[in-house]
């Protein structure tokens, strides 16, 4: 098990091109959603190739910092997948994830991050089709929203508005 | 155009680095002096979306020198927002803590910052015009007393407010912590010493000034005189009160122009914007903005110690009242227009603050454990006012029904004086620059004028040497340096 979830990079390479291709980081619980994604893969379901899957032992292990860091490092969307309520191998991990997710959503809304960029789904090991559906939906949704582009990536010079009236007042 | 540009950069911080630029015409006469404030942080804007109850702590970060003023104005705005009346003990704790802060801040100014000009003497070598020089003048014992007193007062602030810098006690409907009898005794003991201490400061000042004609002449000299309106918070008998009351405005002849509740401030105060400074210039709506001019026709008004005394009918405590009368007798009645009289007014206020702390500390009700009323009303608008050491301070919040700020507006103490400060600098420049010659006294005069106002953002600054370093650069119209004057530590 990787110590730092970010070390576990999916080997899937994200297609590059001039058109915007959303990059989605998915944190999947080892016991359910990750297995489901595997299933989807082995059963040759085609889902959008925009996802980097990061395996965690339980959705309860997902620190909100992971999500924020994913956005910071260029993700356009973050997907969290865990076991269905009642099925968590660590009993309550997924509820913990749910509570954090709810609060994080409120914080992200204040920071101007659109609703559709962070999603939580309960996906059991057998639900390979759900993995496909959720990823396809989310990819479309983010394609519609456009790139995330946090400003920290902007060079400092660009942050100074040129001398004169503020933009809106010009 | 053959114009010269003189830049005075006081380097020490008047919010960032306050800067003075003086333009001369071809004959070398002053065309206009600009005092720029190159600093803005935008608190009013980013207050939006905050929980109203967090404002006392957020706004105290506007100024670490007078965090108590913002904390208290915000707390009072919350009372108004939630329509809660704090229990008597809470009000008394707040007013007492607030007066402790006023005394402590005034003492800092008087002994460390502005006072040295007088106590040591404006003509004394600049190396002596600081706290050390003051010690030389008043004696080491007395000097130690100053340091100890300040420390004791800061200690009381922490005791009551949780923290000295950026207190946390203020809540709508009261305070977060009740005082015990042991606390009260401690407050009383410190207050007793504080009254003696304030009287000692007053005596020192009066002796130095009244025994020296030169000082009196300096105070009353035309160069430091501006006939403006004055605004201050007064109680029901029109006496000075730092914590609560109504805002009273007197005209340059001392006649009452307005008396209003802080809640109605928008009917009376507007702010003017200039493209060359980040500071806004408040003025009286009833008179209007007429540019940087003094007199009855111009809506510029002044705040802070002298303005407070001018706008009042007296002081609420006996010894301060005596001192108040003595000052006006000496200077020829109300209102006094001499900027330098601010120093005098400030020591009188020290006496008031100390006496008021003592009155409150003796009050048995102070230790009543009932210090909070929980708000029940749905919040909409709240406005609070206090007298900051540097003048009238108003916080105004509008919220949604959850108590999240939709709009905030702050009328900040030093800003109320900013227009008058521009006047002072212009006047100093015009009287001391003739035919392109810059009198060395210019620096001194500007420095003294500044210190009298005690601009908020500067006061942390010259705490140690009591000397505001200033650089004047004389530039020709091509921007080349013709002459440079520097003064400092």
């Amino acid at each position: 098990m990787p110590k730092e979830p970010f070390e576990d990079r999916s080997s899937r390479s994200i297609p590059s091109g001039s058109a915007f291709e959303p990059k989605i980081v998915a944190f999947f619980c080892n016991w359910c959603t990750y297995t489901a994604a595997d299933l989807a893969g082995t059963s040759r379901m085609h889902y959008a190739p925009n996802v980097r899957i990061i395996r965690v032992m339980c959705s309860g292990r997902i620190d909100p910092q992971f999500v924020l860091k994913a956005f910071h490092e260029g993700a356009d969307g973050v997907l969290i997948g865990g076991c269905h309520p009642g099925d968590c191998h660590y009993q309550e991990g997924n509820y913990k994830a749910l509570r954090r997710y709810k609060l994080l959503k409120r914080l992200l809304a204040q920071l101007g991050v659109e609703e559709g960029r962070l999603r939580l789904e309960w996906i059991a090991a057998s639900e390979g089709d759900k993995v496909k559906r959720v990823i396809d939906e989310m990819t479309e949704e983010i394609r519609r929203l456009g790139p995330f582009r946090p400003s920290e990536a902007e060079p400092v010079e660009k942050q100074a508005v040129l001398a004169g009236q503020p933009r809106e007042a010009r | 155009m053959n114009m010269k540009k003189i830049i005075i950069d006081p380097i020490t911080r008047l919010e960032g680095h306050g800067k003075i630029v003086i333009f001369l015409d071809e004959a070398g006469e002053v065309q206009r002096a600009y005092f720029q404030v190159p600093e803005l942080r935008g608190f009013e804007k980013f207050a939006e979306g905050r929980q109203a109850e967090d404002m006392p702590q957020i706004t105290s970060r506007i100024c670490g020198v007078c965090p108590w003023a913002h904390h208290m104005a915000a707390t009072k705005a919350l009372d108004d927002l939630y329509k809660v009346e704090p229990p008597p003990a809470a009000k008394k704790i707040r007013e007492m803590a607030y007066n402790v802060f006023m005394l402590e801040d005034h003492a800092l100014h008087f002994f460390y910052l502005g006072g040295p000009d007088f106590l040591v003497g404006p003509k004394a070598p600049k190396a002596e015009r600081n706290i050390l020089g003051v010690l030389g003048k008043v004696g080491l014992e007395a000097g130690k007393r100053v340091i100890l007193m300040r420390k004791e007062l800061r200690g009381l602030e922490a005791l009551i407010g949780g923290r000295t810098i950026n207190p946390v006690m203020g809540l709508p409907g009261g305070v977060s912590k009740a005082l015990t009898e042991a606390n009260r005794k401690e407050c009383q003991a410190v207050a007793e010493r504080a009254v003696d201490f304030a009287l000692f400061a007053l005596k020192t000042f009066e002796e130095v000034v009244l025994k020296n004609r030169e000082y009196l002449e300096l105070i009353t000299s035309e160069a430091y005189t501006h006939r403006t309106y004055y605004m201050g918070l007064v109680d029901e008998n029109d006496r000075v009160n730092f914590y609560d009351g109504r805002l009273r405005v007197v005209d340059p002849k001392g006649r009452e122009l307005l008396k209003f509740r802080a809640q109605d401030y928008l009917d009376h105060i507007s702010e003017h914007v200039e493209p060359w400074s980040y500071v806004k210039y408040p003025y009286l709506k009833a008179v209007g903005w007429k540019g940087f001019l003094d007199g009855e026709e111009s809506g510029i008004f002044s705040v802070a110690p002298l303005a407070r005394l001018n706008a009042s009918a007296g002081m609420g405590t006996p010894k301060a009242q005596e001192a108040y009368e003595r000052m006006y007798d000496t200077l020829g009645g109300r209102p006094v227009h001499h900027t330098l009289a601010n120093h005098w007014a400030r020591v009188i206020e020290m006496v008031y603050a100390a006496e008021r702390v003592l009155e409150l500390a003796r009050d048995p009700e102070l230790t009543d454990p009932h210090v909070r009323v929980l708000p029940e009303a749905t919040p909409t608008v709240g406005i609070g006012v206090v007298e900051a050491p540097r003048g009238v301070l108003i916080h105004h919040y509008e919220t949604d029904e959850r108590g999240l700020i939709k709009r905030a507006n702050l009328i900040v103490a030093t800003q109320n004086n900013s227009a008058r400060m521009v006047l002072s600098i212009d006047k100093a420049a015009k009287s001391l620059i003739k035919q392109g010659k810059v009198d060395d006294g210019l620096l001194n005069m500007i420095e003294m004028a500044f210190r009298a106002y005690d601009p908020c953002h500067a006061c942390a600054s010259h705490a140690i040497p009591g000397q505001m370093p200033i650089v004047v650069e004389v530039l020709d119209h091509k921007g080349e340096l013709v002459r440079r004057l520097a003064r400092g530590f």
Partner: protein
Amino acid sequence: MMAEAKPKVAFYWCASCGGCEEAVVDLAEDLLKVVEAVELAFWPVALDFKREDVERLPDGSLAAAFINGAIRLSEHEEMAHLLRRKAQLVIAYGSCAHLGGVPGLANLHDRGSIFQYVYRDAPSVANPEGVFPQERFPAEEGELELPAFWDTVKALDQVVEVDYYVPGCPPTPKVTRAAIEALFGEGELPPKGTVLGAGTRALCHECPLNETKPDKLLLEGFKRVHEVIPEPNKCLLAQGLICLGPATREGCGALCISANMPCTGCFGPLDRVRDYGGKALSEIASILNSNDEGEIERALEKVADPVGTFYRYSLPRSFLGRRIRRGDRP
């Protein structure tokens, strides 16, 4: 005295409230000890300093530069770079320099919207002509300049390399003394990046109410500070108040709690936590005792301003750094 042997130290303030300067003055007698140990080469609040004087110093000739306040204006950034060149060690002093601080909440907006509100839309402003402060203003008599106001507030280490941090808004005298001791005392210098003067555990460890905090804290809901009078001598978090003690570095001595008010996190994160708000949010959400979506949502409504609560002192230094802008960038 061997004045020349003393290390030269500079203090400087950027977008600061002055509280950090007062905090240094509040060292009182200890300030004199500091002055004995080091030579104050540059302290604009207290000493006559000219920027050219600093420019003239050989690079690296200052032993240390203590910088407080956030980076808000062009001038702040220029000074940070200048001091970085001149000083061997740069120390971010206080929350604003450390994490962006309270003025960093301005990152929920940008220059345009701040100017519009402050100079045009605020209810007391009378500005029918829409005058705004200008970086260069051609006055009748000549040109006047103001420093540029950036769109985004930054913490010090987002513009220059920082060697050490001193936490707090402002740092307490005890923390300041300990930091100075760590830098100029006998021992070896701490590893680069160390937060000086405070501990390495969470504030709860030094909180007098910690004993009353249950090991496994579970709450039915939260309360806002104005909604409840807390019981005395009982952990505030256990009473439903959002106390950020579990996520905050110890060192202040639990000052706010001593006045019955919850910790708002001014000492910042523990070592290895990169995003204070993310961590604090996680702590708070985790202790909610509900598995029901609707119930959770209702309970979280009491956290009415998550950014102001969790990023009160650290929005610029968070992963996202500011409110994301859409469609207004070239």
